[in-house]
């Protein structure tokens, strides 16, 4: 027990890094996924095919391979990356971790939001067109807000998955919660105490995020709540 109390500050800092990396990847991934999903349903083959290839590759391969490809694999292109001036970025495990997680979640979210967009009732789109909306405005005002509401439960799952998957960044030496736990465990031999405590911290964060996303869901769908009268 002493070892847990002693290393609590470091474990909490690790938890912070886990949340930071996840939040950053989820945010950037979300910003990428919406336009990619729109391209994916656009029906323009030249545009939608590359997006499909991107989501297919990142959904079909393990995240660990993607992390290794970016962190270790970039070494094979050192000369080129250095000539463009971005080599120092790829030397940072933190940057590679965020890049891999971002691309991964962008791929999954694109498919989730594609489903959401395709789930928007045709009548609503027709109504919007009848009101004179088209193109950008139609997407911005009608399709996207509705698609996000439809896709939200699936998107919540994706965020939870990413939060847990972020533990993989410890393998490339990022000191997230798992990374800190592994280091303390290896040095103190208190394997089960530390890992169980780390697991408890993960459960708290996971169910906290789940609760927050459910709150957002209720908020977004507030207009659907039926008013009970008399």
């Amino acid at each position: 027990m002493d070892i847990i109390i002693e290393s609590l500050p470091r474990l909490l800092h690790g938890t912070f890094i886990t949340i930071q990396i996840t939040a950053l990847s989820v945010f950037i991934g979300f910003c990428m996924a919406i336009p990619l999903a729109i391209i994916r349903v656009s029906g323009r083959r030249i545009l939608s095919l590359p997006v499909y290839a991107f989501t297919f590759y990142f959904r079909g391969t393990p995240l660990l391979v993607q992390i290794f490809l970016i962190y270790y694999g970039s070494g094979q292109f050192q000369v080129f990356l250095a000539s463009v001036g971005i080599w120092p970025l790829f030397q940072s495990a933190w940057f590679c971790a965020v890049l891999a997680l971002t691309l991964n979640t962008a791929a999954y979210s694109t498919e989730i939001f594609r489903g959401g967009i395709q789930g928007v009732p045709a009548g609503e789109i027709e109504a919007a067109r009848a009101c004179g909306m088209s193109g950008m405005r139609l997407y911005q005002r009608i399709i996207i807000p509705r698609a996000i509401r439809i896709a939200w439960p699936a998107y919540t799952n994706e965020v939870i998955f990413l939060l847990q998957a972020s533990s993989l960044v410890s393998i490339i030496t990022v000191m997230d919660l798992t990374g800190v736990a592994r280091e303390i465990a290896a040095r103190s031999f208190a394997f089960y105490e530390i890992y169980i405590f780390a697991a408890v911290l993960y459960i708290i964060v996971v169910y906290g995020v789940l609760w927050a996303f459910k709150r957002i869901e209720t908020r977004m769908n507030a207009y659907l709540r039926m008013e009970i009268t008399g």
Partner: protein
Amino acid sequence: MFDLQGYGPLLLQGAKLTIYVGVCSMVIAIGLGLLGVLGQLSKSPVVRFLVTTYTTVVRGIPELVLILLVYYGVPTLIQDISAAAGSPVYVALDPFVSGTATIGFIYGAFSTEVFRGAYLAVPRGQIEAARACGMSGALTFRRITLPQMMRYALPGLGNVWMVLIKATALISVIQLPELMRSADIAAKNTRMPFTFFFAASLIYLAITIISNIVQQWAEKRTSRGVRRA
């Protein structure tokens, strides 16, 4: 760039082990999933509580943490307990056994949820009819509920398999020479990390594509009895 420098066979061997680990874990996961759904239907509140705790806790913990916990934690826990009991024993777990068991244990929780949904999808009347024909609870489950559940469970189980086979890559962390670990070894020896990790990713992709085809075939087969409009 795609000169594998003689490491091709090593990768293929790793791929074989990956599939083997995946199939073994999936069998465990399906077994645990069926047990889990039976537990959720149980009349005993203790059993129901245990199953709910299992699915809730396991789905809240990252796979990697559980793999490390089982591989490093369980032997030390046994050693500590046995030492406290006065007869210390030395235990070491085999990476294959502990990795497969952990992955199976994790995805057992996910398949419990899949089976639960499938169970609820079987019309009540079918079970009542079976009881009326004089079948016992166990016989009803085996003859009536289970075959129909499989039809509803198959898409969900297919998804579990797709996630599971990718999760087996994590067992490389405890040194099991599956596909990921083999690629790592080849990458270190040849100093061509991109080539080998990319090759490994293509093998995973191939596994995913083949699984997709098999899933579609299986779904067609299990719904032979369903009338289509």
